[in-house]
């Protein structure tokens, strides 16, 4: 029973911490609680890894009736709360959706749930452990970072009401819900935690209480509620199919095969698509940028959107080889390509990160939708690498934003001089996103190799080739911006707080270390999981691994070459300016004696990769694909 205790501990402990945080008012106490809770959660998830990695799938029965009743009551209370807010802010769509969803829920509980008996409510397997590690380590690191960030945030934004107790309370409830989601074997429970994450994200996005924040939070809420409706529909379908409720048992459902599982799988994948902010629904994630940066980091890297892809990857075996699965994969693929293109035209750092997140989630869904064994392997690998690098990047951008007061990439010129440590960490994070031999490129590579043998894989290879080259463009120009050396800049990073540094160091370390030990992660966690489902598994060739690791070491050694040049230090030359000398404050003599400042700006290629046009194309294409999937589904149901 030891592992069950760990699971319960991971779900309940953040809740306890959240309760404390909701009542604590003093900063120092709050900081202490957050740090303690974060360390505890991180350690418990590691213990889970150590105890559970070789155990395969473990299923636990927990008394479900009382818990389900409590969940039902909480869901009704939340629905009423949302209803109240929806009416207060006159959001008719939200009101409509919450009424629909609550109606379905009440009808389900009163007329269908009577003779349900689901014994095996909790489970854990290697994939759950991976997710738990991501939530437990990266999620809690972000919480620690948030303590310092929110203090600066409130000093800077006096107009925002200080509701930090609620803020941190919700953060930890969010973590608890995520743990619950990945450990639940009962789809009703999954749905409950699913809704909790929706509502938590809604509250966090609207934290600033400005009009923009409120609107964006309702946008996120509506889209996720739509997904929730689909999820609920899947549950009702399953219970109608078998009134004993045995099909609500996730592992059982996946084992029954396509006959029963396909319809709920597509419905739940639709819910996953809304949560993972794929193309028709991508606007909520971009809108969520108004939230304080730790929230964005949490939503993007370790929680929320990862819940969406988690559930889709879970259902990947059901989707594989079906036309519906192909449609979902195409939604993912289109999202990957178009979001990567759109990121080129953005100069807001957080928006670039948002589009990059959307793109990568699209890629994960594309892998899961096609759903062959090697693509499943790639999808999980992508989840891991993306979570680490993206959280690091968000936190770096947050720190920079707090220092320079801007999230515009153009204002980050010369960051390597002004905030050298942060700039190097950002550099590593970005390298993690698009450069060999770091994580995302390993995944991209494996994805190409996997798609090539998959049905209709050629479409995805083309998407990957074009979309992948766009990622190279927008990351490199940003990288170029932060490493360009401008003269006479002061170091302004010494005021960053100690625990923030600690978080950033750990994440930077993780980017590199995970890249080094990913063969180990693969063989211990991912391969057994894939083997268990498909009966065979995949990995990168040993020779290539050796070369990758050699490249990584080479990359780490290269910076030391600068020491060779350091000895022969000579006065730096001036950049070429067409014969005009430039002085130290970046000014040069222009025509008719006017002194002008040298300002360089990146290419954004608005006309070619403009956001609006591509967004329209993407939304119509993806709705079309979803519609086709829906029609096919109707055919199956009827």
């Amino acid at each position, binding site marked *: 029973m030891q592992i069950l205790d760990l699971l319960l501990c991971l779900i309940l402990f953040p809740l306890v911490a959240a309760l404390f945080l909701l009542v604590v008012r003093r900063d120092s106490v709050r900081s202490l609680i957050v740090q303690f809770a974060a360390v505890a959660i991180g350690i418990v998830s590691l213990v889970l890894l150590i105890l559970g990695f070789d155990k395969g799938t473990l299923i636990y029965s927990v008394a479900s009736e009382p818990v389900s009743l409590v969940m039902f009551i909480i869901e009704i209370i939340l629905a009423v709360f949302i209803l109240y807010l929806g009416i207060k802010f006159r959001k008719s769509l939200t009101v409509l959706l919450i009424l629909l969803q609550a109606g379905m829920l009440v009808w389900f509980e009163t007329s269908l749930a009577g003779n349900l008996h689901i014994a095996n409510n909790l489970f854990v397997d290697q994939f759950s452990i991976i997710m738990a590690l991501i939530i437990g380590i990266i999620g809690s690191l972000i919480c620690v970072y948030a303590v310092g960030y929110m203090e600066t945030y409130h000093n800077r934004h006096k107009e925002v009401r200080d509701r930090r107790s609620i803020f941190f309370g919700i953060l930890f409830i969010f973590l608890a819900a995520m743990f619950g989601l990945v450990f639940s074997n009962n789809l009703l429970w999954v749905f409950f935690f699913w809704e909790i994450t929706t509502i938590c994200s809604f509250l966090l996005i609207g934290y600033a209480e400005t009009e923009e924040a409120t609107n964006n939070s309702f946008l996120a809420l509506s889209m996720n509620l739509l997904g929730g409706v689909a999820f609920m529909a899947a549950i009702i379908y399953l219970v109608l199919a078998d009134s004993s409720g045995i099909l609500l048992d996730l592992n059982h459902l996946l084992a029954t095969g396509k006959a029963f599982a396909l319809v709920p799988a597509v419905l739940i994948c639709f819910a996953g698509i809304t949560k993972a902010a794929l193309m028709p629904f991508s606007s909520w994630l971009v809108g969520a940028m108004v939230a304080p940066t730790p929230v964005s980091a949490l939503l993007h890297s370790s929680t929320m959107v990862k819940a969406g892809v988690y559930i889709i990857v879970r259902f990947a075996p059901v989707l594989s080889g079906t036309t519906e699965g192909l449609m979902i994969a195409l939604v993912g693929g289109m999202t990957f390509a178009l979001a990567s293109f759109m990121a080129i035209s953005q100069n807001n750092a957080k928006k670039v990160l948002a589009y990059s997140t959307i793109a990568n989630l699209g890629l994960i869904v594309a892998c899961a939708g096609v759903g062959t064994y090697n693509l499943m392997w790639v999808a999980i690998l992508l989840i891991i690498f993306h979570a680490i690098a993206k959280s690091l990047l968000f936190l770096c951008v947050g720190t920079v934003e707090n220092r320079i007061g801007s999230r515009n990439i153009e204002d980050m*010129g*010369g960051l*390597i001089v002004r905030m050298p440590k942060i700039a190097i960490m950002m550099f590593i994070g970005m390298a993690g996103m698009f*450069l*060999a*031999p770091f994580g995302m*490129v390993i995944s991209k*590579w494996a994805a*190409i*190799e996997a798609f*090539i043998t998959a049905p209709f894989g*050629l479409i995805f*290879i*083309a998407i*990957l*080739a*074009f979309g*992948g*080259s*766009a990622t*190279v*463009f927008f990351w*490199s*120009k940003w*990288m*170029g*911006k932060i*490493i*360009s*050396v*401008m003269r006479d800049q002061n170091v302004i990073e010494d005021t960053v707080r100690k625990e923030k540094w600690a978080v950033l160091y750990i994440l930077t370390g993780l980017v590199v270390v995970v890249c080094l030990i990913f063969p180990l992660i693969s063989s211990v966690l991912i391969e057994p999981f894939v083997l268990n489902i498909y009966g065979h598994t995949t990995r990168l*060739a040993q*020779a*290539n691994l050796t*070369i*990758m690791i050699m*490249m990584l070491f*080479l*990359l780490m050694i*290269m*910076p030391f*070459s*600068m020491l*060779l*040049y*350091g000895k022969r*230090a*000579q006065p*730096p*030359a*001036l*950049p*070429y*300016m*067409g014969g005009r000398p430039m002085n130290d404050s970046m000014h040069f003599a222009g025509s008719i004696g006017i002194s002008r400042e*040298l300002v*360089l700006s*990146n*290419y954004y290629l608005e006309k*070619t990769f403009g956001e609006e046009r591509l967004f329209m194309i993407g939304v119509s294409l993806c709705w079309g694909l979803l519609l086709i999937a829906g029609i096919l589904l109707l055919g199956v149901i009827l």
Partner: protein
Amino acid sequence: MIPEPLLPVFYGLVYVLLAPLLGGLIAGIDRKVTARMQGRVGPPILQPFYDVGKLFEKENPVVTVTQNFYVLSYLVFMMVAGALFFSGGDMLLVIFAFTLSHIFIVLGAYASYSPYSHVGAERELLQIIAYEPMIILTAVGMYMVTQSFFVSTIVASSVPIILYLPGIFVGYMIVLTIKLRKSPFDISTSHHAHQEIVKGVTTDFAGPNLGKIEIAHWYEYVFLLGVIWLFFAWNPLLAVAAILVVYFLEILIDNTMSRVKWQLMLRTAWITAGTLGIINLGVLYYLGMVVP
């Protein structure tokens, strides 16, 4: 003579040692042929070696010391990419290492904060995104014909790859034009006396650093022409002939075309990759399904 497992290492080393010599020679012939096409006598064949020798005799002024690091990394990773290719490694890994090395030269240009380097860097990035899809499709095409991404397997295959991949081959020639910095696609920097927006990415590199960029470029020559070999690998004589013809064509294109804007370059490269490349692969895919 050399034990079997060490053979790839040996080939890699041979590339690292000999590629600059071969690449420099190719560059020299290129300049000579170009001059003849223009009715001039042209420099000696060994001129590129004299140039690089001279660059190493000069002092090394840098705007920031990090430039040295970027240039050295560019050279080293170009060597790594080429060595991987010639030791029979995985094509995709070779492509990723190749991209990595180019990112370093771009970063080196960004680092100097000069308007000319900056424009050069942006344009170099545009070139990278223009050719990258096609080069990946090339690798995928090779896989579809030979069932392997490993160069060692592709080169040993007795299948006349070119007959299966004519579309890919034409697309690859566009990659080659971009990568050899030939007109009409020499928008980030170019060779010989061509110049625009001063000298693009290389504007703020002088002396030994410029020399290293030149050497890296020789390595690149040999690698890129090596890929052409793969298309004709079943018949080495034909492969050499194909390389000569293709290279001559590139010089001809260089001397008869004028430089285009980046929009046209991107469009040409992507449309070729999207039509010729994808259709070619699609046909192969279809054939593969029908005739297993």
